[in-house]
């Protein structure tokens, strides 16, 4: 992680377990036992990724890359917006009739 808090994509790719732990675990990086346990079960770690890659995906390194994941992340992050307040009011006011 750089001084500005931007995680380098290459760093993530090279050491996903440590970063997953840093980003998701309450133990913190100092807990070597936790790191060891996660290293031992890396094959089961994929379910950690979704809660971290949304963060990673918004980092500068990913948003400026042309790799496929980054292109996908750019679409999912940069093209995403909050729901329009007027539109949401229409949805909430009519939801009983819109429910399938």
């Amino acid at each position: 992680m750089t001084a500005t808090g931007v995680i380098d994509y290459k760093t993530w790719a090279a050491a996903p377990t440590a970063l997953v732990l840093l980003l998701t675990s309450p133990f913190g990086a100092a807990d070597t036992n936790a790191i060891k346990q996660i290293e031992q079960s890396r094959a089961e770690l994929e379910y950690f990724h979704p809660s971290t890659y949304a963060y990673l995906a918004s980092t500068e390194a990913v948003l400026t890359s042309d790799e496929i994941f980054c292109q996908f992340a750019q679409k999912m992050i940069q093209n995403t917006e909050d729901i329009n307040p007027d539109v949401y009011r229409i949805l909430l006011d009519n939801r009983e009739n819109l429910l399938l």
Partner: protein
Amino acid sequence: MAMSNVLQQMEKFGVFLPRYLSEASANALLQDLLKFPEEFDSRVFSFTAAAEPGLLYQGDGFANLDFVFLPKLAKLPGKGLILSNTCDMDPTNEKAVPRLVVYSPIFSLSRFQAQLVSAKSNAFAEDYIGKIRRQEISQLFYLPAGPQTSEESFVDLAQINHCTREMLTKEQVKTNRLFSLNNTGFYVLLFKLSVFFCRLQEGIDRK
């Protein structure tokens, strides 16, 4: 895309893909994500859970769920998308506490478009429905029309309801499960859930 290029991208993208996927499945997912949001179509419903009739999967569409839209207390039956984690709903995983299943309502896109036309304009409605179809509204998950959902629809990830796991019996799962998402649909759903609920950019130092 040339195969050599696909393989090259697979190596780079590998850390972001579920590790349980076969090479063919990972490649198919990669190709779908490359084309996203175009071609996010009925193929997302191609996964059939027939082999595991009682098991519920995260992202399953389910009919005859109960909804309460507070502050109104009336209970309405409707279709919903299951948000709970697959493992947490697996009856074979022992839990010390009662299992709850959380789900969000599935709404009709065409009826919503009609409401927008009525309240706004044709042009506004068309533009906004396009954003929903392209998954651009963070809290709405778009679902294309499919074999079990004959019309386009969308899920509001913020309008969460719940029931006990025991209420969704094996027989009900068999009768009321509308669809299960394939790898691409599931991946996009998890990404949307992550962005909506788990982004770390709130900008607040909670010391």
